[in-house]
């Protein structure tokens, strides 16, 4: 995605926000369009967000999950895709545990594909809503210092955020124990530190990532206790941050592990703004990929 494309999506999303604040939260823009929400992986936030976005634009949305789809009957992704294609959907939103799954789908079908998260690879709509949220609070993205702290190695959100924020002119610093920093991550044009103080110092935004408890079994860190002490965000550590720092988290939160409840719910937190903006960004994307020729805000 180019800088212009990202800006277009964010600008479109800004205009979409207003629809969600009306008493009747629905416009007919995508009437007659079919949006398939194809979620091979469990997801509450992202799926609901896409579903609401589609409905607010009057598209017909259908939800398929890994457990209800033919995947459990042994059908391959390609076959499922071809069958879906035969029913003429306009957009397929795919969440899949395998990196690259949307590429397979995009090659096989003519419907537009929106990646709603693939393996550890990318979660572009999350990065877009993160950028939108920061832009709303800070006015712009260029020149900001964004600290992303947590399980970088297994995080598609971190990868997409690196890609997006760097492209928009922000500087990104990643922070985690070395076990959770993947090889070559610097190639995104980001810097890396193992010291949380250094990451927080001067940051305009602190993005905390969910730490999965299963990682302990892969020896990524010794215990939740130690992880929380070294890399968890609490009021004490926040003292060294800038006074207008923004605290973000893509969710779901492990309260008390990577972020303390008082910080998650505190005055710096814009975590719920992220969720609100998620709907706007996804409305913008659905509108843009289905052509977007008719003006969304004329309705």
């Amino acid at each position, binding site marked *: 995605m180019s800088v212009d494309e990202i800006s277009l999506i964010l600008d479109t999303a800004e205009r979409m926000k207003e629809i969600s604040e009306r008493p009747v939260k629905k416009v007919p823009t995508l009437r007659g369009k079919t949006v398939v929400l194809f979620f091979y992986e469990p997801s509450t936030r992202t799926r609901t967000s896409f579903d609401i976005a589609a409905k607010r634009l009057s598209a017909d949305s259908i939800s398929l999950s890994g457990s209800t789809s033919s995947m459990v009957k042994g059908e*391959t*992704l*390609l076959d499922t895709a071809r069958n879906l294609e035969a029913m003429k959907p306009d957009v397929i939103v795919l969440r*899949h545990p*395998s*990196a*690259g*799954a949307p*590429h*397979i789908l995009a090659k096989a079908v003519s419907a537009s594909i929106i990646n709603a998260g*693939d*393996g*550890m*690879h*990318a979660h572009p709509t999350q990065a877009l809503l993160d950028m939108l949220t920061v832009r709303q609070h800070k006015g712009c993205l260029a020149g900001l210092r964004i600290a992303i702290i947590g399980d970088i190695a297994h995080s*598609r959100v971190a*990868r997409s955020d690196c890609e997006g924020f760097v492209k928009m002119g922000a500087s990104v610093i990643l922070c985690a124990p070395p076990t959770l920093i*993947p*090889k*070559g*991550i610097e*190639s*995104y044009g980001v810097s890396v530190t193992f010291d949380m103080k250094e990451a927080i110092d001067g940051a305009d935004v602190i993005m905390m990532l969910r730490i999965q408890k299963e990682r302990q079994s*892969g020896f990524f860190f010794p215990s939740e206790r130690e992880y929380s002490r070294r890399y968890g965000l609490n009021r004490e550590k926040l003292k060294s941050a800038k006074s207008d720092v923004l605290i973000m988290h893509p969710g779901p939160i492990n309260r008390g592990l990577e972020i303390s409840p008082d910080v998650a719910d505190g005055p710096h937190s814009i975590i719920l703004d992220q969720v609100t903006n998620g709907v706007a960004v996804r409305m913008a994307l659905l509108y843009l990929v289905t052509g977007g020729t008719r003006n969304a805000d004329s309705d």
Partner: protein
Amino acid sequence: MRTLIRGARVIDPGCPNVTKGGPMGGLLDVLIQDGRIADIQPEGVLNIPSGNDVWIYEADGHILTPGLIDMHVHFREPGQEYKETIATGCRAAAAGGFTAVCTMPNTCPVNDNGQITRFILSQAAEACGVRVYPAGAISKSLEGKSLSEFGELKDAGAVAVTDDGKPVMNSLMMRRAMEYAYGLGLTVISHCEDMQLAHGGAMNEGTIATRMGLPGIPNAAETVMVLRDIALCELTGARLHIAHVSTLESVRAIREAKRNGIPVTAETAPHYFTLTDDAVRDYSTHAKMNPPLRTQKDVDAVCEGLRDGTLDVIATDHAPHSPVEKDVEFDQAANGIVGLETSLALGLQLVESGVLSLAGLIEKMSTQPARILGLSSGLKIGAAADITVIDPDRIWTVDAGRFKSISRNTPFDGWALKGKAVLTIVNGTVVFDERLNT
């Protein structure tokens, strides 16, 4: 019936006298009678009147070498005949210039007993004539729990033992396997991979894996096992052959071991000196194999290892898979690519780039595999006539759709390559003649 190959440039690294038989740079005629090499003389010296009992092949100055041997192939019979049978694998081998192959034991059922070995050999006897040398499994069902009966495997015709596809993770079992195989004169072929370090990775660990969001396999997953097996080789004195070397650190370890007189040999595959993990971009499952494609510094080290003799052999690790295993999500896709029909041309690129001499290439694709597996080879008068004729200048385009192999899983489809086997003879019988191949 006699065969006369006229006007060939003869190269036999294992038997330099033959090559010197003619005037320097001169062409030779090779006469084959009753399946054996009857005579080799400077062009025109042999006075054979053409007639019904002699088939004359004009080599036109092309290269004639001892038959190429691929000591690492997976034919899927028994068990997965939809990917490759012994018959189709042998045809692919012949088309690639190979007169003999060594088949890995990870069939279904596994070749861990004499009955399966004999079955493979009986299927091979029905095939086009390419020689098939089965490798037996080190452990029963490749499970790493108990040893296969090496004695029975050897008596049935196995030439080596290996759990290829899986490592022998238990170091004590590997020690015993090497000792026991030593007593029987069997080569132990080791697939070097520490499964814990590999940690379910799907490609080489590094920037590209990180950018693609795929779990990576570090070089060390291979190298720690290479180092372990070298230590066990030193301990046991067994003949150890390390399969598909892909990393700089492995090359360095093997070089050091050889310097210390440890009887280890090693192979690499054409993709490890031709491609890097960059080929995986776009989630191409035809670039997914184990060990994974590495980086340019590893490619350079593999080339240097071939050049200085650290790596003895080029073998393909021919691993046929159907779209059922390959047209899926990258992390779900099977490992491996077919290689028999592209190996020689990719090897010739090393000659073109000056890494190997032509004789050096033939040594790694024929002389050394024969030596390591204890097979006879070479263009000696009276020896079995296993011969490959190569047109080194032929430009051709890889068309996977026309492979003799059932499977088409190659990252080289559409590549323009230079050099091709044009005639393959096993035991005096033509098994591939490029002119008849439409």
